[in-house]
């Protein structure tokens, strides 16, 4: 197996990661703005602060790789290529949404880019990801599957059953823990016994890697190495990507349970401007180039929000459709 260094991102890759980071960042800012404005009411789990993880990960993935993600997963999905217009239409509960308005923010799905499941139940990405990995194995493709989940989710039974099965079956699944150090209001220490979640990999005899998820190059290396391992048929990897969520658990959370200095330190180290400055400093892009990228993103989001708000709500008949393949009688 190659060492992580073999997976060093080049400049083009870093720029591509930044493009995704900028998109994720702008979209989260917009989502909170739209909620505050009252234009869309939704239960929203901000991922602000965690953008680098999926941006770097997805740069190591292909479109036909699969993703299973969670309620706090819009960053994962956007990075994987979820189209903005049908995302926003779904958030707004419109008939034009990816799920016709039936799923909502916690159940976004877009198989065309491999975004197969979004779940609101802690831990439940992992068992399903294994099935997608089994399918890839049977298909004889080198597709990989990513299951993302939080630090808190590493304590639930589904985590254990899934990592064990993936290891025994040598499935091409990457278990990506986004360790933002809180599970709702509970600190890492109050819920999690392991010194670090990556330690749990030993119990499945698979690699366990802890990485600074806010460091684009480090995150890319870890992801690319796990992807290479999975594509080669060598089995699953557990990645623990360290990060922090800036906006509390759910929109409106006053987050009094977060020590003030901890939060201040994390926000002072905001990975988005830091990455941006780094690109300029390293001569990978100019301020103007990045600003142009960002402006383009804002325009796309504008259009998507407008599309969503102009779209119709679903007919109540939809309650009878998609329960089964065949429509249910009225």
């Amino acid at each position, binding site marked *: 197996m190659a060492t992580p260094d073999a997976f060093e991102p080049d400049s083009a890759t870093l720029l591509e990661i930044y493009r995704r980071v900028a998109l994720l960042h702008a979209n989260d800012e917009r989502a909170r703005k739209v909620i505050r404005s009252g234009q869309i009411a939704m239960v929203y789990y901000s991922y602000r602060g965690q953008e680098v993880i999926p941006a770097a990960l997805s740069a190591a993935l292909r479109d036909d790789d699969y993703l299973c993600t969670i309620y706090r997963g819009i960053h994962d999905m956007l990075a994987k290529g979820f189209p903005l217009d049908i995302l926003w239409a779904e958030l707004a509960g419109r008939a034009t949404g990816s799920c016709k308005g039936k799923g909502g923010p916690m159940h976004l799905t877009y198989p065309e880019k491999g975004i197969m499941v979004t779940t609101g139940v802690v831990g439940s990405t992992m068992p399903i990801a294994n099935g997608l990995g089994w399918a890839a194995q049977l298909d004889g493709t080198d597709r990989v599957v990513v299951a993302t989940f939080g630090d808190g989710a590493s304590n639930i039974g589904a985590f254990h059953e899934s990592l064990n099965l993936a290891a025994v079956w040598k499935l091409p699944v990457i278990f990506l823990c986004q360790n933002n150090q809180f599970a709702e209001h509970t600190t890492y220490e*109050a819920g999690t016994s392991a010194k670090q979640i990556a330690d749990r990999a030993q119990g499945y005899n698979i690699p366990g890697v802890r990485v600074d998820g806010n460091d684009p190059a480090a995150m890319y290396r870890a992801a690319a190495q796990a992807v290479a391992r999975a594509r080669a048929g060598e089995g699953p990897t557990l990645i623990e990507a360290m990060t922090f969520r800036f906006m509390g658990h759910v929109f409106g959370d006053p987050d009094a349970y977060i020590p003030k200095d901890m939060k201040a330190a994390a926000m002072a180290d905001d990975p988005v401007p830091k990455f941006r400055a780094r690109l300029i400093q390293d001569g990978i892009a100019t301020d103007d180039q990045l600003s142009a990228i960002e402006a383009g993103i804002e325009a796309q989001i504008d259009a998507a929000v407008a599309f969503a708000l102009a779209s119709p709500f679903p007919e109540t008949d*939809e309650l009878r459709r998609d329960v089964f393949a065949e429509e249910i009688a009225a």
Partner: protein
Amino acid sequence: MSETSTAPAAAKPATPKPPTTTILAGLSKALMDAFAEDDKLLALGEDLADPEGGGIVGVTNGLSTRFGGQRVRSTPIAEQAIIGAAIGASLVGYKPVAEIMLMNFTTVAMDMIVNHAAKLRFMSGGQTSVPIVIRTMTGLGYGSGGQHCDYLEAWFAHTPGIKVVAPSTPQDAYGLLRSAIEDPDPVLFIENLPTYRTPMPGELPDAGHRVPLGKAAVQREGTDVTVVSYSRLAGEARAAAELAAAEGVSVEVIDLRTISPWDRETVLASARKTGRVLIVHEAVKAFGAGAEIAAVVGEELFGQLKAPVRRLGGAYSAVPYSKPLESAYAPDRARIAAAILALAR
């Protein structure tokens, strides 16, 4: 209160606003009072203690500060471990109140609840017992979609050995929770999330207040139609009864309060009187708790009813996200009133 005290002296005397309180307050007080009376009480669940904010909605706010972090403990996200810990402690003299944050998450703890909590007394031939309360919240109305607001009471009502309770008023929330805690057997206690903070008439009861398990409340008397409901929809049924009254139909509203064992006597007595029964719940109608009630009413009062027993319930689908669909999913006061009028016709 502030209204009367700040009213200008010259104004005509303000009619005192009738007091209101909330289900959330009723539950919190019930826990506080019960913990103060019995030091064998324990509480556990995710984010339940004060360092974690005293519960995600605040029902247990202050409890750990007052009674200590050993008795009131936040847990990892591990519902099997939560219920298991409650069962274990209850086997040797403690009375744990376990919280499963949302009812849909009982799905990861069903083995502990159904195969263990509900059965250990029987399987041990009465040597052990499991006096636990499992508090859980649910209910649609806030756009949480398919995995966060199911009413699954029918599963537990179908499980011998566990009781199922669901209040619809602050006073009942208090009195039922106190009784559930005092009950020698496991009780599943279902709380409606969207109405936690809805102001409701009356004051918080004092510490002696109990509502016995298994006893329904006739919340409104009437002669034409009996509506049987529980949890949030009991409130909608009361509102529907007023709408129907305006159309000249006299409705008796029964809030079951306990779904298992349910109060057959009260329901059958009312059905005998009115001859027309409508059962209403937010859970999926098909194979819901209402079916059992309809089956028993139909069997016991065969030939004595004036109309078929009707049921209203949730649609046969997952709960949808989009607001218009979510609103159409479950019965509301208008649909209940329409069903009442159709029955009375």
